[in-house]
């Protein structure tokens, strides 16, 4: 029973009974459970060996390094906590809020349309989920993929609509193409959208880069994408650095399929952080 408990295979009544017993402080059973957890963890080695991409390590190390820098950064000399300073920042804040209000009034229609389309897609997905629940183990994999897609869409909607998101316009560089728009939310991530985007040649892809503020800092590789047949693209970056304060700009380059650890071409779109 200890092994089944550590495995998470006990059905609720059995699980509750064992936990109630453990709560009495039975040291012998607690030790058995602790050893069973070790035994169960060994089952991980049954998984077929697979290797991560170099890009994952690049993204992870860039995030870790940027967080280290953020924590060790001194307080900016311009910052103040005096009453006079608070009054100045309060005024500035009110002005910024007014500007934001005007912006969101102008942007409301577009956001409504996106929400409507998103909700319709969610309803379609939910109907598909309901029918898929009656199918076999193979279908369960599809269900998981659909649920994952729904979670992704919810996250994208949150990023696009939350006033806390920062908007970044990425202008095309030396090519005839509309600008792209990125919304960066400190908690939920980044959503990049583009329309009428020229298709990269062959099987090449477009890759997003985070350009650090630090002089000489290396561009941080992020997601890759190819636009659809209509030239539309959407990228969701779930785990960007927690704060955009160390990032100077976003850039998009054309790269070989699978992406690159460092840019191999000049950026086609660039947008500075406001």
């Amino acid at each position: 029973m200890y092994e089944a408990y550590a495995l998470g295979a006990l059905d609720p009544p059995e699980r509750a009974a064992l936990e109630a017993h453990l709560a009495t402080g039975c040291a012998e059973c607690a030790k058995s459970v602790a050893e069973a957890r070790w035994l169960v963890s060994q089952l991980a080695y049954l998984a077929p060996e697979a290797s991560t991409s170099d890009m994952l390590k690049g993204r992870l190390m860039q995030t870790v390094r940027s967080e280290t820098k953020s924590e060790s950064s001194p307080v900016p000399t311009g910052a103040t906590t005096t009453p006079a300073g608070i009054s100045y920042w309060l005024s500035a804040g009110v002005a910024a809020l007014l500007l934001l209000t005007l912006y969101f009034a102008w942007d409301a229609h577009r956001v409504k349309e996106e929400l409507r389309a998103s909700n319709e897609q969610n309803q379609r997905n939910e109907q598909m989920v309901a029918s898929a629940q009656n199918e076999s183990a193979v279908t369960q994999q599809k269900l998981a993929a659909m649920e994952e897609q729904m979670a992704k869409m919810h996250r994208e909607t949150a990023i696009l609509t939350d006033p806390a998101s920062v908007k970044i316009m990425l202008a095309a560089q030396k090519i005839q193409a509309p600008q792209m728009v990125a919304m960066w939310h400190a908690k939920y991530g980044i959503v990049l959208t583009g329309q009428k985007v020229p298709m990269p040649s062959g099987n090449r892809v477009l890759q997003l880069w985070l350009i650090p503020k630090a002089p000489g800092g290396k561009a941080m590789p992020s997601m890759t994408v190819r636009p659809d047949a209509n030239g539309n693209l959407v990228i969701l970056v779930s785990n960007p650095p927690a704060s955009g304060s160390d990032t100077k700009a976003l850039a998009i380059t054309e790269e070989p399929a699978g992406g690159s650890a460092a840019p191999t071409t000049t950026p086609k779109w660039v947008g500075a952080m406001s």
Partner: protein
Amino acid sequence: MFLAAFSPKDDREASPDAALVRQLLQNDVGAFEKLYDKYCRIVYSLVLRIVQQSGPAEEVVQDVFLQLWRNSAQYDPARGPFVPWLLTLARNRALDTLRLKSERQRRLENQADELFSVVVAPQYEKELDEKRRAERVRSLVGELNPQQKRAIELAYFQGLSHSEIAAELKEPLGTVKSWIRNGLIRLKEGLHTAS
């Protein structure tokens, strides 16, 4: 907590992995990179086996290692070896991804409380490199009968309960329980004998 009474041996507390994790508390990026290089393969292999898709699998691996970096204080070497802790964390994160909004996910969320619970390696356990450990576990599980192996894999890699496995395999519940119990006991004995 009474569980803290099961402290591992002193040599395990002083293991190279525990030392590296302690260095994370000082924001040591080099120590983090060493831990990533050492364990990214087994963590990714496990997560990919569970979620089946490389993109989501990489996101889970990234979450796991970022949690290690941001919350390294949550790992207490005195409460057990590092690798089983890391693998337990990775498995639960991967199953969370696989089972969004389902009953199973709620059960696993409850299990999240166990993440930082005690894991005690048995006395016979020796430090092995990852390759030899994988060979040993695969060999032992490969000796189980196919149904027994399948039941254990459904529980471990898909997070299914006894009842769910019985329904999936169309076998009596008692049979499934016996398969899993006996299979894990044989694995335990095999690991003991092989050490």
